[in-house]
């Protein structure tokens, strides 16, 4: 075992590990959660919610979408302008709290 071999092994480990970190979240999707099931215990958790959407605010650096999955309504906040001509979508994000109300800090909409 010499320095060059160590470098190669380390390189392979880095590549496999990084590939897994990138691909696993894509391959293993999140199961949808119902809005009525969300509680303060879910703060910080990454969730996926599917439902009817309504744009409430649409600016250059802020978009607020209200999503209704039939069990309740919740606001999803994007810190960018979102363009979507759909009435139904899946929103993925992190559960957070704003002015006492649960909301989703969204990272993706499909």
């Amino acid at each position, binding site marked *: *075992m*010499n*320095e060059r071999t*160590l*470098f190669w*092994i*380390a*390189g*392979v*480990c*880095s*590549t*496999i*590990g*990084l590939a*897994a*970190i*990138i691909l*696993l*979240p*894509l391959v*293993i999707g999140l199961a949808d959660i119902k809005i009525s099931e969300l509680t303060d215990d879910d703060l*910080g*958790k*990454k969730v996926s919610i599917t439902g009817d959407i309504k744009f409430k605010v649409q600016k250059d650096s802020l978009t607020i979408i209200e999503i209704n999955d039939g069990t309740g309504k919740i606001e999803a906040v994007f810190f960018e302008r979102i363009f979507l001509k759909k009435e139904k979508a899946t929103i*993925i994000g*992190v559960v*957070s709290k704003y002015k006492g109300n649960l909301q989703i*800090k969204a*990272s*993706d909409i499909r």
Partner: protein
Amino acid sequence: MAIVMELVLPFIIGTAIGIITGLLPGIHSNLASSAIAAYIGLDGNFSNEAIAVMIISMGVAHSITDNIPSILLGMPDAEKIMSALPSQRMLLEGKGIDAVMLSITGTLFGTILAVAMMPITVLFFSVAYFQIKWAIGYILLVLLTILMMNEKKKMQSLLILIFTGILGIFVFRLNMKEPLLPLLTGLFGTSALIFGLINRNTIPKQHHNACEIKKDEWLKPSFVSLVMGILSSFLPGLGPSQIASLGSKAIKKITERGYIVLSSALSTVNLIAGIAAFYAIGKSRSGVIAAIEGITGNISLYDTTIMAFASLAAGGIATIFTIYLAKRMISIIHKVNYSKLCLSIILFVMLIVLLISGLTGLMVLLTASAIGIITITKEIPRQNMMGCLILPVLLFFMGISLS
């Protein structure tokens, strides 16, 4: 793109923090993981999963780059204490680069084996822990007795074990944030720094190129470290340094070089096996995992898998950086003003402890440092200072309450 970067960015941040903190002598990974959980974890920009990836990447990267200050500056963490003596002997012979490469080999193979064996480790914890939970206190007592019987300075080692144990019991009862921070930093970090400052240590000029590492120097020690590292994360209170001492008995005629590989691999195996322990039995066995527990609560199989791969990637990247940095540092290490470096780090650590644990923490740090200095000056094996954790854990599992 956002989904793709969701875990990559925290991974990069965590690995970078781990590489930097690993290079700073006296800074334990518990400190960095507490800081990440306390400051980054609360701002809501990352999910719990992302914070967990950040912390574990930091922990693994730290355990690898930590080989540099452990060996080149003579500042080992509690986990690396057992490899400190042979490493420092090699450093004083001008073969510091050999010691660093041996340590890096150990930590890298420890990472690979621990990640590869994760499914079996989870199964082992799930099945074995609840079967023998009732006997853990007695197992710890037997192992401690074996360790004491093997010490050359038996009475002094026992006294240090008991003394630090009493300190640990008192510290855990204090109303203080992050009690482990000033306790372990004082015992193993600042004490060594103060000792180095007093002794005005100097480092001789070093060879530039490392010798090839033979198969019997890394293969068997790596596999033994896997078994012993899992055992160490299974038994609370017993750290990698004590397990290294026991593990060396499992290899006939282990050389000093093989011992360095074993001891280095153990600390990383212990950390990664800790993920499996946390998933399987819901118990955190290290400060890093405890910080993750504080953010996520219990983790899922998916979280465990992601953290395992993050550990692998962090291990690989940190290894590459460490080899590169070690080769650069080896040519200038003899020029370093050691006293100024020690003093700067002591002051930095005191500030961190004051900010996180307050004045009480500072008092604990000074007390623990004093005990650490006594241990070093009397040449009592430093791993006995792990009594600060072993004794409280032993009493807990034997059902002895001191409240």
